């Protein structure tokens, strides 16, 4: 209800002066980056809340141990969108597959924030604060970045400003005029709570049944939910004088039960993400050429399928980069980051994919080489605990 209070968007035209670019320091480990800084560059950050199963999104089909852990979750081999002789995209990602062929996709596997426990709340706190541990009054790393380089304009798309953008720097926010629909996952969880209530339970069910009938008969004439945010992201980023950074949030990735192999809950989320990025490319038009989209989640999920055909909270997972801005980085492997392996002895605590990269090093890389942030300031003020080793491409 407070979505207007942060709408202090300052629409002044920002000019990235050559002086600032010249002042940009360098980060160690820029193995795959060259200088791609341009004053018109755009950044979109998509936060996937609930912890995306990276092993289902980018399938290491070449790892001999994969099937022993999660055969039930792997789509048929011939349907996999193979990136090389080891990794494949899930078949629900045809759009990303096309981008990959065009050099407009970056995939980083076995990547994680600094967080090593298994709470969504704390995991998202660390993901967005960029710090070592979850702190109740933390500020967001993107906000701190804006403080050190105030020519940048950022905007939160959604009903509220997420932690990643909170802090002293002024940011804009925009929410679609229609309220976000109740998400399916939340409704399922609520139904489960209500099932124990003999008075309210049947009444809620009756209302939900009625809604299902009504909505089945309606055609979706107006973009709603995440689609509306994607359209807004496209419009804002290409608007002259508009924000050059946007943040979007997408819920529903917590797949403990029946997450699905070829089809089901999680593949539907993949399709939504795939369509969203394709839609953003279309919406951006030529602006896509100087855009990088970062897709990140709070942690990965367990390597093994659980007793309810889902996966539980894990450690390392996948981050996606997308955008025409990536072509400037030249040729690189389809999947970046050292592969830790899935053999029993390689797993973290006997259950999780071992992280081989810190998300902050990847983000710092993008902020510096794509958005022109000063590397020294990034290291000191934005990501003070970031490993000195930097991002490891392989």
């Amino acid at each position: 209800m407070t979505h207007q209070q942060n709408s202090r968007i300052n629409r002044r035209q920002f000019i990235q002066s050559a002086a600032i670019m010249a002042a940009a320091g360098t980060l160690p480990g820029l193995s795959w980056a060259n200088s791609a800084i341009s004053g018109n560059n755009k950044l979109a950050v998509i936060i996937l809340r609930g912890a995306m199963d990276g092993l289902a999104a980018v399938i290491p089909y070449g790892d001999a141990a994969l099937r022993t852990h999660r055969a039930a979750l792997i789509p048929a081999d011939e349907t996999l969108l193979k990136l090389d002789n080891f990794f494949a995209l899930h078949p629900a990602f045809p759009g990303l597959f096309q981008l990959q062929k065009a050099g407009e996709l970056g995939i980083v596997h076995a990547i994680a924030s600094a967080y090593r426990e298994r709470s969504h709340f704390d995991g998202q706190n660390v993901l967005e604060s960029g710090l070592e541990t979850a702190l109740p009054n933390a500020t967001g790393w993107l906000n701190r970045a804006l403080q050190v380089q105030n020519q940048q304009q950022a905007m939160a798309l959604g009903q509220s400003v997420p932690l990643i953008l909170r802090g002293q720097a002024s940011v804009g926010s925009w929410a679609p005029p229609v309220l976000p629909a109740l998400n399916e996952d939340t409704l399922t969880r609520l139904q489960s709570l209500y099932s124990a209530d003999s008075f309210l339970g049947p009444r809620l069910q009756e209302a939900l049944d009625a809604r299902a009938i009504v909505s089945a008969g309606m055609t979706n004439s107006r973009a709603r939910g995440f689609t509306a945010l994607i359209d807004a992201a496209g419009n804002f980023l290409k608007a002259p004088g508009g924000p050059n950074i946007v943040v979007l949030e997408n819920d529903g990735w917590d797949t403990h039960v029946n997450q699905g192999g070829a089809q089901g809950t999680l593949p539907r989320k993949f399709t939504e993400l795939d369509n969203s990025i394709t839609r953003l490319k279309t919406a951006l038009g030529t602006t896509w050429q100087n855009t990088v989209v970062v897709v990140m989640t709070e942690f990965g999920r367990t390597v093994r399928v659980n007793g309810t055909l889902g996966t539980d909270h894990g450690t390392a997972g996948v981050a996606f980069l997308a955008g025409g801005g990536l072509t400037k980085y030249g040729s690189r492997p389809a999947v970046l980051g050292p592969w830790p392996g899935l053999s029993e002895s390689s797993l973290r605590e006997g259950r999780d994919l071992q992280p081989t990269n810190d998300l902050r090093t990847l983000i710092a890389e993008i902020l510096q080489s794509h958005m022109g942030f000063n590397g020294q300031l990034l290291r000191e003020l934005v990501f003070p605990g970031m490993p000195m080793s930097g991002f490891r491409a392989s």
Partner: protein
Amino acid sequence: MTTYSPFIAANRFGLGIQPGEYTKIEKDPKGWLSAQIPLANRLPPRYAQLGNSAQLIEMADADYRQRISFQQDGEVTEDEQLQLRAAQRLATALMRNHANQRLAVAIESDTPFAERLVRFWSNHFSVTLTNNKPTTVYAGLAYENETIRANMNRRFEDMLLSVARHPVMLTYLDNTNSLGPTSVLGRQRNRGLNENLAREMLELHTVGADGGYTQADVIALARMLTGWSVNLPTNTAARPDLQTPAGSFYYNARAHEPGTQQFLGKSYVDNGQQQAVTAIRDLANHPSTAVFIARKLVRHFIADQPPESAVIRLAQVFRDSRGDLASLHKALIDLNEAWDPRLQKLKTAEDFVVSTARALPGIALTDDILGILNDTLGSFNQTPFMAPSPAGWPEQAEHWGGPDALIKRVEFINMVTSAVGSDFDARDIVNLILPTNPGLQSAVRRAESKTQALTLLLASPQFQWRA
């Protein structure tokens, strides 16, 4: 052995616990409630500048007269249109402000039991303010403060009398139009009684429909009430009583039906306006009134199906104390049934909205936010002073918890948490606002985001109930 749960104290008898209140209440939940009883007649500071009912009625009457005069003298000119629109804007702003202040008082209250009691009695003496009675539309909150709040530490008879003499009630239930058939004005105008106030006073305010009265008693009370009116100019004339403020109570002897009246087995001699005063005081202390009020209190605070033992006990206290309200309120929380966790009440829409805001401290109560909450009350069909009938808002869970109402509540919570979900950690709040519930706690803990966790907590069945 009764266990005094802080959650029952704050949720069943209050307006929903604020997370920070838990430790304060936990020490002595019953003591926390009883300490609020003597404070129930305090006027919240937010109400200090809102004007009294006489001023607000006079203002509304002037606005109404302006509208009528513009319409009666033929075509409404452009200048008149502008004046009307300006007046309408002011009226809307005034009513919104009153509604916002009333909501803020509930959300902020540090005496939520006292506030609930005020709202209980206000609903007992419910008024519905529509443009059918244009002179009272601004005065709902003033009515509540002047008749209900001001009398919270007095006797039921004082409150009843204060209500019956109040211009808002006299207007709402048509007593201003009631003329003694053989009074001076009645004979002049060949008009007679309007029984509305008398009937509702018996049926809804005191003895109840089964309280043992007849149509003859209704007529007798209506006759005694003739002449009880409001000091406003009729048509173009000046107000009838220049000594007292416009918009206040006015006894019009020329409308009063002469003669002794037989009412509920007693004779009341005609001593002008005192005739009805005496009758009303007796009515307030009628044995049936004690039972009717006792049952209503128990139904409101404890269970839709009131345990008879509790009703008998409260009725006894009512009779013994001659309707002393503070004694009655104390007796309510002394009941063993009051603390029985098996008895449950569903929150009304208003209390659901208020308790949601109370569960989320730190949200600034700006006019915008209060306005959104008031609009929400409108969408739940519980706009204050707009109850569907003189009986006030219903009590039953069936009324408040229908399928459509439930889904609206869930959607309201979805709206709230979409905006502020990331500001609150439901894991920290769950044990401070609701009794221990492993299913709910685990749902909150396992939620995929802070926003979802808060949605599950505030849209949960547990948060719909008052336990």
